[in-house]
């Protein structure tokens, strides 16, 4: 069901993997350039900056200008990776992303870190809980939320080769290795750990690990809950989703994002039109976060394996 050797490694933040993979890409390809808005130490683009100062542009605290500059670099044939915290990248510069990246279809990679509630102590102003909704609404945009460092590495390499706008959402906190070691990410292709006959949990980002744990908990009670990593939220892997909806009785979505407009929203939109089944969305319930430790905040907002398992049981009961 999962990679045995993977789970033994020390947890690692997806942003740390990004910094390493971007540096490797910089060594392999001279067309890779990076931009940051004064957060290169946190987003980990600083590693690239140190080795390739001529291909790194620190834009200062100016996200809107960063997006425009990235678009300009893209039209001269560069492959820009533009990074800052998810809340600033998607919120502060949304109109810029819309006009000069999506409408213009420029080859810019927006790789934002500090997505979700696990930003922790910095509090609500710095916790992006709406970024996936903001990005998903834009035509031409691909939206990806990797689950762990293994997937992040594969995602960053894949989007560097893909031509077009991409939003990749990474996290601040360390997360366990949850994907198989030989896993290869493909845009629009979900990873099915297994399909459940009773329920299926569609998760993204750090919630994939929680979903796997929830599935194990449920198995001890004789409930077969499948787990699917829907790391590409746009375009959604509709075939896999449809199969899960047809195999099990209920669908549970789990994401570190508002239940409005993110993975849960995308899943509901598709299923409502194509194969209506009961869906329960686990996520942030239309509220802002607050300061606190990452684990503490996950508990506070009901984003734990136990919460997911409970939701599965309630859904199955209601579906009877």
């Amino acid at each position, binding site marked *: 069901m999962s990679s045995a050797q993977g789970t033994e490694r020390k947890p690692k933040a997806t942003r740390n993997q990004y910094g390493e993979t971007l540096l490797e890409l910089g060594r392999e390809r001279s067309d890779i350039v990076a931009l940051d808005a004064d957060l290169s130490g946190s987003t980990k683009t600083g590693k690239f900056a140190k080795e390739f100062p001529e291909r790194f542009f620190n834009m200062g605290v100016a996200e809107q200008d960063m997006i425009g500059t990235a678009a300009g670099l893209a039209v*001269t044939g560069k492959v820009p990776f533009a990074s800052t915290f998810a809340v600033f990248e998607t919120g502060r510069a949304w109109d810029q992303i819309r006009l000069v990246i999506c409408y213009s279809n420029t080859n810019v990679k927006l790789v934002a870190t500090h997505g979700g509630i696990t930003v922790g102590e910095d509090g609500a102003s710095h916790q992006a809980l709406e970024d996936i909704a903001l990005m998903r609404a834009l035509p031409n945009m691909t939206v990806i939320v990797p689950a762990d460092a293994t997937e992040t590495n594969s995602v960053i390499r894949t989007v560097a080769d893909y031509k077009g706008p991409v939003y990749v959402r990474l996290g601040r906190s360390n997360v366990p290795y949850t994907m198989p070691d030989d896993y290869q990410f493909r845009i629009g292709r979900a990873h099915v750990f297994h399909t459940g006959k009773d329920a299926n949990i569609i998760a993204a980002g750090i919630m994939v690990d929680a979903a796997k744990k929830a599935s194990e908990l449920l198995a001890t009670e004789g409930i077969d809950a499948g787990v699917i990593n829907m790391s590409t939220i746009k375009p959604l892997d509709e075939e896999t989703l449809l199969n899960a909806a047809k195999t099990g009785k209920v669908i549970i979505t789990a994401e570190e994002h508002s239940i409005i407009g993110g993975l849960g929203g995308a899943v509901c939109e598709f299923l409502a039109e194509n194969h209506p089944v009961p869906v329960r969305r686990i996520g942030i319930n239309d509220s802002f976060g607050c300061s606190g430790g990452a684990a503490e905040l996950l508990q506070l907002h009901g984003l734990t394996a136990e919460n997911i398992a409970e939701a599965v049981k309630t859904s199955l009961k209601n579906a009877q």
Partner: protein
Amino acid sequence: MSVMTKGKVTDVEELKKIAKSVRIRILHMLTTAGSGHTGGSLSAADVAVAIYFSKMKFNPKDPSWKDRDRFILSKGHAAPLQYSIMAEAGYFPEETTQTLRTTESPLQGHPCCKRLPGIEVSTGSLGQGLSVANGMALGLRLDRNPARVYCIMGDGEIQEGQIWEAAMTAAHYKIDNLCAVVDCNGLQIDGPVAKVMNIEPVVDKWEAFGWHVIDIDGHNMEQIVGALDKAEGIKGKPTVIIANTTKGKGVSFFENKVEYHGVAPSLEELEKAVKEIDNE
């Protein structure tokens, strides 16, 4: 048409003739479309004509030619001006100009790069073009490509904060393969710029942001060409041309009329306007 090379049209009288033709085509396009931005298309016409025909190298038959000079119309609502120039240069047939602002047209209400080859990046939401111009200039510099980048902004447009972010960036990265222009026609939709949101002192602001500033009469072709020549020689910092212009320039009854910011000429107005420009 073959590749336009630098200095293709150096004769000022010839540039003035092109500007007349460009203005007349703008008016025809707008009248046919029945909507669009007359005042700001006419105010920036002389500067834009001088940039395209006296300075830029480009190939209308190969709009993505990698050594081309780049132009970005940050004040995207003056799209009819860029379209008229592109028609003049041979990017598309004359009859295409009659499709302005219609569903299938490459000539959208504001410049769209996916519809019209030769537009570098789509514009229309104000304040964004200078950042894109910086990015293009940095990309060209990384490639050691000697091509230059031109960007025209409006005076109302520089009320957008992003312009000043980009102004800092250009100076910080010593972007000297870029020449920006502010088309200072003094009017914006809600009235005089000075009344809506004062931007003065414009020259001092750009100087304080680290730019080389050239302050000119934006309708004097000798001054425009002189400023563009000078900009090419400024090294180690970006150059901005403050072009003092008249909104609606060339048509007496449109000049300095805020009402014609976003209104197209009627058929009667078109006839009178074309006569005025012809007889000038």
